[in-house]
Every structure is written in C-alpha cells, then in structure tokens.
C-alpha cells in the first residue's frame, strides 16, 4: 500500500492480541553523521530511568557521513542484554534501507517512518505509523542549521507516545546529555513533546508493544567498556599512556584524556600525576609505554588488531627484558584492516604467542563493562607483579556500546607494585645477601626477580636492560647455559602467574551434562542461550574464562563434562585451540562453535549450535 496516510482498517489490530510488555527490541535506522546518536541514547537512557533493563548496540559503517547505520535498543524485563536477530519496532529514517527494514520486522511488528517516504510497503502483517517530520520541524522555531539534527527528536516523541516512554525521564536523559544546558535541552524537548502530542491526536495504537516502569535498574549505571577501562586504569594509578588513534580503541585513550585531569591532579600542587602521549604510530606508542614501564611508571597503551600487529617486536622485548606494561586490545574484525567498525574475538592466539621466539603473554578477558573497570586496575598489578606485558582483550561490542552494568566498585586491594627496590630496599637486600644483588636473580624461587628503577641513586642500583642475551646480573652473555637458565626462569613466571590471575566464573545448573565455555563479550548471549536450552530441557553448566594462563578450575570443569562447547567470535576457534594446547588430555572433550560476521553473537544461534550438535 502507499505510504503517507495511515490506514485504519485492514491492518492487523492487536486489540484481541495480548500486549507484549517490556520485552521487545527497537531499531533506529538512520544515516550516519545525521546526529541520531543523541536521539537514540536519549531513548535508551529514558528507558533505563524507567527502571527497565536495556542495552543498546550501534551497527555503524567505517565512514563519517552518509552511509546507513543502525541503533538497536533491546528492552528486556528479564535483563537479557545480548543481540537478537529480528526487530519488533523499526524507526526507519533512511530511505536507502527502507525496504530492507520492512523485511526484517517480525509479523505484527511496528514501522515508524517519515510520512514523505515514497516507496511501497510490501507487507500487510505489520503496523505502520507515518510521522510528519518536516511539518513538525517547520512548526518548531528551530534555526535551519539545526533542523536536520533535531529532526531525530521527532521520532523520539512519536515513539514515546506510542509505546509509553515517560517524558520526564526523557527530560532527565536530555539534561544529562546536554550537561544541564537549558537552551539545548528545551529546544530538543519541545520538539519531542510536540511530536508526542501530534501522535496522541493523530495516531491510533494498533500494536502490542508497551512499556511499564519497573525497578530492575537499581544500583546500575549505563556505560561503555572503553570508558570503564580508562577509569579502571585511572584507579589503577596509570601514569603513562602512549596511544595512536584506531577504531574501536580510540575512545579508551580519549576517556583517559577526559577523566585524568579530574581525578589525578596532585591535591597539593595541582600538577598532573600522569602523562598521555598521542604517538606517531603504534610502534612508537608501545615503545613509549615500554620505556615508561622500565622507568617504573604504571604504563599502558590501547589499540586494536592492526596496532597490535605493529607492537609484536616491542612486546617481545618487554617479555624478555621483563618490563611491565599493559596493552588493551579492543578487538575488531580482522585480519588486516578487516571490518574496523565490527566486533570480534580474533586476536587471541596471535596475542598470546606474539613476537618471534618463545613467548606466552598473560591475557585478561573482561566479560562486562564493570569488569572492564576492574581489569583496568588489576592489569597493572598483574604486570608489575609478574614483570611482563599483560594483554587485556576487550572488543568493539563491549568497548563502544552502552551497557547497563553494576556500579564501578572501588578496588578492594592496594596497588601491587611487585618487587621494586628503592635505595633503602636495595641496601637492605645487599646487607642480607652479602652484597649479592642481580636484576634477574630469582631470589624467591617464584621466577620473579627484583627490579631497581632509573632514578634510584644507590650506586649499586643501575643495570643495563637489553633484548640481547644476559645473565642474572643483566650482563651481556652468549653463553648457551646462561641463555637457557635465564629463559627457563622467565617461563617459570608464567606458572607463577596462575596464582595471580582472576579465576573463571562457573555457573552450574541442576543435572547439566553439557559444559559451555566462553570469554569476554560472549557472556550475555551465552547466559540467555542457557535459559533457552534449559526451557527445552537441556540444562548446561557454564564456565567463563577470565584469564590466560588457565587455572585448575578450567581443567576440572572440562573433566566434569563429556562434552564442552567453546563459544567464540572468530573463525578458527582460538580459545578452543588454546585450551587444547594447555590441556591436551582434555582435548577430546572439547567442541567449539565459532562465528565471526562482525555482529555480536545471539542466544538463538548458540542455542541452535548446541542443539544440532546434541541431536548428532
């Protein structure tokens, strides 16, 4: 049927259907660069303030302006935050993708669109609400240069009216977004209310989707993983960050730039206790970070795949010279430039074995936004304790999307600076050990030596760090036995690391025979899939890996299940491969379901993978 006028009859009326409350998903289809982000997050936040569990996912192109972009808000009374495959409600603002949006709607789904779209609507099992966007904007006294931008507020208003978003909650969201700037808040709010009024008088609701306030967001906040990671690093005492812009990691370093001045200026002097340098590339970013780590600063860099590839050589040096440094890899689809604006877990094997020669870097896998915060500070403790580079592997979905998450918790332990010797400490050690100090001596038998820092003025403190063969005192050596001894001792640290890395999270179900293993941002989809499977009479146990090296719980978990599914966002099943390597005896019990198409996994896909495998 033709667009523009809203039909009254011959549309599926929902009056007879039972309403769907707080359990559906809304997609905003817009053109990037059109400023729809404000409108979309405003809706997201308003829902959150209504106490309803929500999550928002932005599917955007790798360009700046003019291409299609989708923002999906999932409303879930049960608190599921994973992606779903089909839309219940679509706000279609982009003519270019209009027909496609229509396809993607569920039967009985709702389509909101500007009333001047001219293309056919090919389905009659959906409900459409045309919106007089141009008209409403004209009526508003918006300055012309802002019109395109506030146009987006029209759909906020209409949507609010049709599904029942509290306008005052919307106001709160705007107030937050515009940092209290009255003028901006009102000009937007007025359009929203005007649109809502128009909808009230001109549209009759024939769909089944409704919102009702809850209080399921108590003690929760909305945040993205990159901001959380940056804040965690700040609470971890980050002092040096070298970085180079790259999607989807840039916002982590930019959050450092935003929050450090507020949180980390010396109370007395007002001086900065940190240094952030935008480097000329990633080779320099990691080089700077390694230099700073060597000097005893809590040092980090943040990047994504291509940058990680460029850091390989320096990470090998840091590994062998035993320099603590934290590297955040906010993963995107690779290899190469790949899909810069899509999510993946594809850098795991490369990252763990990075650089030539034998290496094995510890890895942390934050599985939620609050864990990004927690691992932000823990990573420094781990790196300094072990005197090795530590990788924190996040991804675009976790890092750039807004998530409902627990409030960030203040670190429950003190900074662990590891084994550092200042003048007095060194003197003490010299006294105790008859003058025998060596930078690379394994004094405690845990493989971790003691380090002095540049600036230590004790005449015995200096050593010459290097990537070439050296003995326990840092002296250059090509002696076969020396190399073997020192390098074996370094490997010992990897075993010691098991004592310090975060343990996996295990959730069991009554009578489960199947084990599921996953890491990072796969978590919400896995948890939801487990409920779906349980509902079908297939209970599952679930272990979420949070770190490499693997701790014993993992081996035990695998042994407890005939069959363990490793769920991951890559092509080759990299986590499964790592498990196979370190637990060859358990290998026969491991299966994997891996998918990498740039989108977050869905519960439905996981469910089907496990079922079809069961049916075999």
């Amino acid at each position, binding site marked *: 049927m033709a667009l523009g006028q809203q039909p009254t009859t011959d549309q599926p009326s929902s009056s007879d259907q039972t309403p769907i409350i707080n359990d559906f998903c809304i997609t905003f289809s817009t053109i990037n660069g059109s400023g729809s982000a404000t409108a979309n997050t405003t809706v997201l*936040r308003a829902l959150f303030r209504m106490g309803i569990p929500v999550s928002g996912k932005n599917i955007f192109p790798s360009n700046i302006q003019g291409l299609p972009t989708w923002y999906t808000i999932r409303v879930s009374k049960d608190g599921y935050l994973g992606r779903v495959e089909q839309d219940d409600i679509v706000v279609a603002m982009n003519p270019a993708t209009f027909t496609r949006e229509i396809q993607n709607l569920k039967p009985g789904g709702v389509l909101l669109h500007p009333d001047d779209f001219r293309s056919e609507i090919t389905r009659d099992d959906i409900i459409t609400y045309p919106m007089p966007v141009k008209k409403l904007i004209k009526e508003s006294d918006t300055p012309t240069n802002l019109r395109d931008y506030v146009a987006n507020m029209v759909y906020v208003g209409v949507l609010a009216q049709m599904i029942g978003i509290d306008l005052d909650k919307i106001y709160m969201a705007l107030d*937050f977004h515009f940092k209290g700037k009255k003028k901006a808040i009102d000009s937007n709010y007025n359009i929203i209310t005007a649109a809502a009024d128009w909808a009230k008088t001109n549209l009759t609701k024939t769909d089944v989707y409704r919102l009702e306030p809850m209080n399921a967001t108590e003690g929760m*906040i*909305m*945040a993205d993983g990159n*901001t959380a990671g940056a*804040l965690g690093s*700040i*609470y*971890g*005492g980050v*002092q*040096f960050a*070298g970085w180079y812009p790259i999607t989807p990691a840039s916002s982590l370093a930019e959050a450092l730039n935003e*929050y450090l001045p507020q*949180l980390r200026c*010396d109370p007395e*002097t007002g001086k*900065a*206790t*940190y*240094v952030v*340098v935008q*480097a*000329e*590339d990633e080779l*320099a*970013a990691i*080089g*700077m*970070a*390694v*230099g*700073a*780590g*060597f*000097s*005893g*600063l809590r040092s980090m860099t943040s990047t994504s795949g291509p940058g990680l590839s460029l850091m390989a*050589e*320096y990470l090998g*040096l840091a590994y062998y010279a035993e320099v603590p440094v934290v590297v955040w890899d906010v993963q995107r689809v690779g290899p190469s430039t790949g899909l810069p604006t899509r999510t993946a877990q594809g850098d795991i094997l490369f990252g763990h074995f990075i650089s030539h020669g034998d290496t094995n870097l510890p890895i942390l896998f934050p599985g939620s936004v609050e864990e990004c915060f927690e691992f932000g500070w823990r990573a420094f403790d781990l790196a300094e304790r072990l005197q090795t580079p530590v990788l924190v592997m996040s991804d675009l979905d976790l890092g750039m999307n807004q998530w409902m998450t627990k409030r*960030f918790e*203040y670190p429950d332990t*003190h*900074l662990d600076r590891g084994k550092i010797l200042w003048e007095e400490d060194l003197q003490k050690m010299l006294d105790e050990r008859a003058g025998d100090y060596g930078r690379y001596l394994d004094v405690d038998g845990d493989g971790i030596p003691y380090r002095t*820092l*540049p*600036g*230590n*003025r*004790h005449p015995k*403190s*200096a*050593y*010459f*760090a*290097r*990537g*070439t063969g050296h003995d326990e005192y840092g002296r250059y050596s090509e002696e076969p036995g020396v190399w073997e001894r020192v390098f074996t001792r370094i490997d010992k640290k990897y075993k010691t690391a098991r004592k310090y890395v975060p343990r996996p999270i295990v959730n069991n179900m009554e009578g489960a025979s199947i084990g599921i293993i996953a890491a990072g941002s796969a978590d919400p989809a896995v948890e939801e899939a487990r409920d779906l499977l349980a509902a079908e009479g297939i209970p599952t146990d679930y272990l979420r890996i949070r770190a490499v090296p693997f701790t014993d719980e993992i081996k035990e978990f695998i042994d407890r299940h005939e069959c363990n599914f490793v769920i991951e966002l890559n092509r080759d099943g990299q986590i499964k491969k790592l498990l196979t390597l370190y637990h060859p005896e358990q290998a026969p019990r491991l299966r994997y379901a891996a998918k990498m198409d740039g989108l977050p996994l869905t519960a439905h896909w996981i469910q089907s993978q496990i079922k079809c495998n069961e049916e075999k």
Partner: protein
Amino acid sequence: MTDQATTSKNVNLAGLSRNDYRGLPSTLCQGCGHNSIASQIVAACYELDLVPEDVIKFSGIGCSSKSPTYFLNRSFGFNGLHGRMPSLALGALFGDVTMHGIGVSGDGDTASIGLGQFKHLVRRNMPMVYIVENNGVYGLTKGQFSATAEKGLELKKQGINPFLPVDICLEALVSNATFVARSFAGDPKQVKELLKAAFHHNGIAILDIISPCVTFHNLEDSIHSYTFGKDHEAPLHEISFIPPRDEITIEDFEEGTVREVEMHDGSVVLLKKLENDYDPTDRSQAFRVLEEAQRNNWLITGLVYVNTQMPSMIETYDLPATALNRMTESQLRPTRESMDMVNSMMF
C-alpha cells in the same frame, strides 16, 4: 675552567674521578670511530661534574648502539630495538624528569629503519642528547649501505649505491630541532665541547658525528673516512663551553672575535669566529649552510643551529618537580569518595 680546576686533584666537583665515568672495555673494532666518541662522553660528563646516577643511557641496535656499555657504568641504560630507541627514551625519561638522557644511535638505526621515530622525537623537542655515530654503513651486519651512504659509493660485495644520502642535520632542522650539530670523531676536542653544550640544552640536542667504520667503510675519498675528515673538516667556529658557575673574563678574547650563546641555565657556548662569521641562532642561515655543504660535499662541523627559547616536551606537560616514578598509592589512586562521583557521571 673546570678542566684546570679539577684535573689538579683527580676528582671533579661531584667528587668523582674519571674512573667513575668509565664503562666496560669496548668490544668494537680497534680504531672504530665509535670508541673515540665513547671516551669523549666520559670526558665531557666528568668535566661537567655530572653524577652518573643522574644520567640514563639509550641506544638502538648496531655497533654504535653497543657503545652505551662502554661509558657510565653507574648509569641505568636500555639497549632497545633497531631504529626504535626514540620512543623508548621518550617514555623512560618521564619516569624521573630530573635525569639527563643520552641516546647513541647509528646512521642505519636513525636514518634507515628509524627515520620516522627520530623525526617525531625531534619534533616533540624531548630533552635529551641524541648522538648519531654516522659511518655510512651497517657495521654490525657487515658493511651494507646505510641511508647516509653517499651516491655512487662502491663497497665490497655491495656494488654501487644509487641513492642520495640522508642528511641527519638537515632532517633534524626541518623537524624543528632546537640544537643541531655536526662533528667528526677525529676531532675529539670539538666532540667534547659540543657534548657539554648538548647536556646543558633544554630540549633535544642532535649530534651528527661522522664516525668512520675502519672495517667496512674507510675509503680515503669518502666523507665517512678518517682521511677525508682530517683533510676536509671545515669547522664553522671554534667552540668551547662555559658552565653556569664560571663567568667569562672578557679579556680572554679579542673584541668581536667571539659569539656567545647563552643556554637556558646560564651556561654559555663560546664560538670563536673563523673565516666567516656564523650565527647558529638563525634557522634560515642554517638551512643555507647545510644545503650548500650538501651540494658541494663539504664536511662542515660545529654548532649548526640552536634555539634556547622553545619549551621542551616535558615543559608542555604540567608535571610535579618530584619524580613520577616515586609516587605512592595515595597520589596514584583517587579517593574512595571519588568513586560515587564517577559512577554518577556515568548516568
């Protein structure tokens, strides 16, 4: 001046003897230019009364980059990666900004693989002494052409070099270096005085020192050889450095025969005029001189350019006077109270 002042009793004003500035015995070839530079570093630091523990050494990879172990044994150091020393030094120097940084690199390390990092370090004016021991070849890998090898040069097993050389000083100048000098390992006095001035410069000091590789590239007619240097070195001036505390007694010099450049800390670089007067604070003149020298294959040496006004990279950050790497948890971790504030910022 310090020389006389201290050498009498064999310790300097820091109470240290020359020995306290020594390094391990060199493992470089006998006669390698790098060795003579290393000994001038020892001499300069001794005469400047630097405390070794206040100095930190850096290098890349190469014969030249090995030399930091041949001086200042009591200083920390980091022998990094080939061509990537600049980033390493930049990060490390923020650990304790009261320390002096000195980096030793080679022409392959700086002009071939390291050109990008070198120029970005210079551009940031990170305060440190950066020495390029320039021999036109890759010594440690046995004599391949580096990017500073002159066009048409023919070497054993390498054939003829078809490309024009990278001019380290010109590169530094284009990148807005604030201290640019060229010297010759065969002119120890000049090397030493330039080093002293460099240590007292508040910004990056680039020293492009021709340092012959006697094993793989010491051809008489090559600008990188001893013979060429001995025969053709053309100093822009005779340079000597006067530390802050000694004031210059003007009658030492005849009217108008010297230029004085005052460094940020009040020390003075004295430039005794030779044939023609040269003003190292004039950037366009520096361009002219370097371009001309390049065109005519002249080995001009001395302080090519200095700018004592530009703030150093460290100054562009508003850091406390105390070393960052000595800060404690109370300074590094925000208060427990701040946590709520942060959470509220999150919506």
